[in-house]
């Protein structure tokens, strides 16, 4: 799919002109490199494609709300205006649920860890995928709880059939949809069938659906599992504002489920796990529907552009429904990562068991992806032809 600079700009409304990617990226780097005496590789890097962040950060409404909240920075987030309670209501409003169905975390990682606490034990293991987001299995390891890792299929999709079988007598199934790092999606029907099947075959087993990348999905077959979480006491949906909402630095995540389920999550959460400024920013962001639409459109274009770069280089890219791509580079991810880092581009860490062949690259702005593409082509290209749009003098793909 051709991507032009013009269509990219067209996806952004005139009101957001201040968020020109080049300006923001430069500002971000300045802030990072100016931060301290002992810069680490991340602050020295030119382009950050390693952590699946939104390269533009929060929208204008969120940042204005954050600044307005300065006046209450000295108040606990329950006393600040707006308060944590107001954020809970905003999350509920955004998801058409009641506040009692919402538990907040300092990022969704906290809720993933709580789920492992609540539902697994030495006799009831965790079922997860390989590879997938590692936080639940890391928590299980720390607690000495068994983990059943179910390999993804050849297309990088979670093997729902094998996971359902592994779920028998398990305490918790972790279902990341779309899956990080493979970027692939299961449609609404497949998730509903999976939940129904596990509910029948292993009724005590809980299922945590991690929808961190929900807002980046473009596949029309997708639907959130939130309605299922409201129906089933053992189903929970986790979300985060660290991705499309551009607030990875602010640490806001949440879980949705039945009231009794959510009450249990609330008991385990870190006391005051929200920053007062983040609360204000998050409320504004959740109510700023246009900003999320624009961010999804921006990511979709940059994702298509990035996918095209790798395909033109001759590599297989999994069907991404997220803000990163997972690519079969046919060589160890470690060397690729190090070669890119030497050239100022950070890409994702290794993801066993696919670390010998695959790499994860987050989607930055189109401008960043074009510059990264040149480096990636150098690192991986060898004698391969230069992809369209990355050659000498070609500013943008046509």
């Amino acid at each position, binding site marked *: 799919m051709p991507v032009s600079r013009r269509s990219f700009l067209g996806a952004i409304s005139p009101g957001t002109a201040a968020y020109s990617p080049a300006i923001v990226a430069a500002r971000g780097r300045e802030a990072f490199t100016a931060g301290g005496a002992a810069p680490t590789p991340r602050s020295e890097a030119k382009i950050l494609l390693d952590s699946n962040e939104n390269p533009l950060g929060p929208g204008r409404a969120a940042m204005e709300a954050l600044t307005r909240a300065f006046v*209450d920075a*000295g*108040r606990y987030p329950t006393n600040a205006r707006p308060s944590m*309670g107001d954020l809970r209501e905003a999350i509920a409003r955004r998801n058409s649920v009641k506040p009692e169905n919402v538990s907040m975390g300092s990022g969704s990682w906290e809720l993933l860890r709580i789920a492992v606490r609540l539902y697994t034990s030495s006799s009831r293991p965790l079922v997860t995928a390989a590879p997938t987001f590692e936080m639940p299995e890391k928590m299980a390891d720390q607690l000495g709880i068994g983990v059943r890792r179910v390999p993804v299929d050849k297309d990088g999709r979670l093997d729902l059939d094998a996971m359902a079988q592994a779920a028998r007598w398990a305490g918790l199934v972790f279902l990341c949809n779309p899956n990080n790092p493979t970027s692939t999606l299961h449609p609404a029907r497949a998730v509903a069938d999976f939940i129904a099947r596990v509910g029948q075959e292993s009724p005590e087993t809980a299922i945590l659906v991690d929808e961190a990348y929900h807002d980046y999905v473009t596949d029309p077959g997708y639907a959130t599992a939130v309605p299922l979480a409201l129906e089933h006491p053992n189903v929970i949906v986790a979300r985060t504002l660290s991705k499309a909402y551009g607030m990875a630095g*602010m640490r806001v995540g949440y879980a949705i489920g039945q009231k009794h389920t959510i009450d249990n999550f609330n008991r385990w959460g870190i006391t*005051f796990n929200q*920053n007062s400024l983040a609360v204000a920013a998050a409320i504004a962001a959740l109510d700023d529907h246009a900003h999320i639409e624009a961010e999804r459109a921006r990511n979709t274009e940059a994702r298509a552009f990035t996918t095209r770069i790798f395909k033109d280089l001759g590599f297989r890219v999994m069907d991404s429904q997220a803000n990163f791509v997972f690519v079969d580079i046919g060589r160890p991810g470690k060397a690729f990562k190090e070669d890119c880092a030497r050239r100022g581009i950070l890409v994702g860490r290794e993801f066993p068991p696919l670390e010998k062949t695959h790499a994860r690259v987050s989607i930055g702005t189109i401008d960043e992806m074009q510059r990264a593409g040149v480096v990636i082509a150098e690192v991986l290209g060898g004698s391969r032809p230069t992809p369209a749009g990355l050659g000498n003098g070609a500013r943008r793909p046509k």
Partner: protein
Amino acid sequence: MTRKEADMSFTRRAFVKTVGIGGAALFASRREAWAGLLQGAGAPRPARPLLLHNNENPLGPGEAVLESVRQALGQGGPAGRYPFEHVAHLHQAIAEKFGVGPENVTSGCGSTQVLRVAVQTFTSPAKPLVAGQLTYEECAGYADLIGTPVRAVPLDRAMKLDLDAMAEAAKGAGLVFLNNPNNPTATLLSGDAVDQFIDRVHSLAPDALVLIDEAYHDYVTDPSHRTQAARAVKDPRLVVARTFSKAHGMAGMRVGYAIGHPDTIKRLDWEGSMALNVAGLVAALASIKDQARLQRESARNTEARRFTIDWFSKAGFASTDSQTNFVFVDIKRPAKAFRDTCREQGVLVARDFPPLEKSHVRVSIGTLDEMKRATDVFGRILGVTARAA
């Protein structure tokens, strides 16, 4: 303070009319503009009750601190990045302040996270937690969650933590929690007394970690006080917790930290630094370098504290010797009725603290002006206006 208490403090309705500060003031950075923001001057917000229930610094962080947040976050970009490096920068700055290395520092989402992780990593069903019966409850609350038994040691007659009894209770324990000064009693244990206590616990309970929570350290004026941070970096069985929520005025920013021996600090990294947000990290980094402001805040608090204690004393109600930003007062009646009436008259004071809920109330120290207004209300409720005036 517990989450439940705080959740009940306010309703959404009370805030529903909240109106934003004018756009022009948003990016104001000059001193007057910030002062105006912080005092609410010109801000079309509805009157809010006096918040004397959560031991917050009424002035919040300094203008320079907030300006550093505004600059660091710019128009948004960095707010979208995971703040791993900011964590490292803050640890470095804290280490420099204490003259130790970054390997002696860990941080958390408020000191609450540090306290919870200490309970997680140093206690078990077989290794109890020892704490005062009337002290900050975060550790005991988390112990209940994970099935760790809690040995709650009653206060002594001076309403101080009973160090002898706590040392005895430490035998076979995993963690001994000492809040100094102690919340909610506001009392301090001298540096010598704490030193001897640590020695005693080490000899009676060689495996137990002593956790000293020095949340109110910067408000102490008693010269017998000593931080245990210097000892903690050399002693793997001692760790000191601190917070930016009190004198630094950053309760909303959620940053706390611990100082200790590298082995202990490593164990306290159980949850990583994922809970730390970039605004709080940037603010903490700016605030920890501003020692002058901390001293001004301590002086301000000392004056308002003196006024409050004197007022209660003249009215016939004894306070403990407060070394914090709150007072613990024997009002000779149940706290609940007093609190409810205060709330009706626009002043919030703290929740019940059993077993002293029938006689004592905790009142946080606001600004001197706020304390004058609050004591007017207290006088009416306690029926002592004339005497106190």
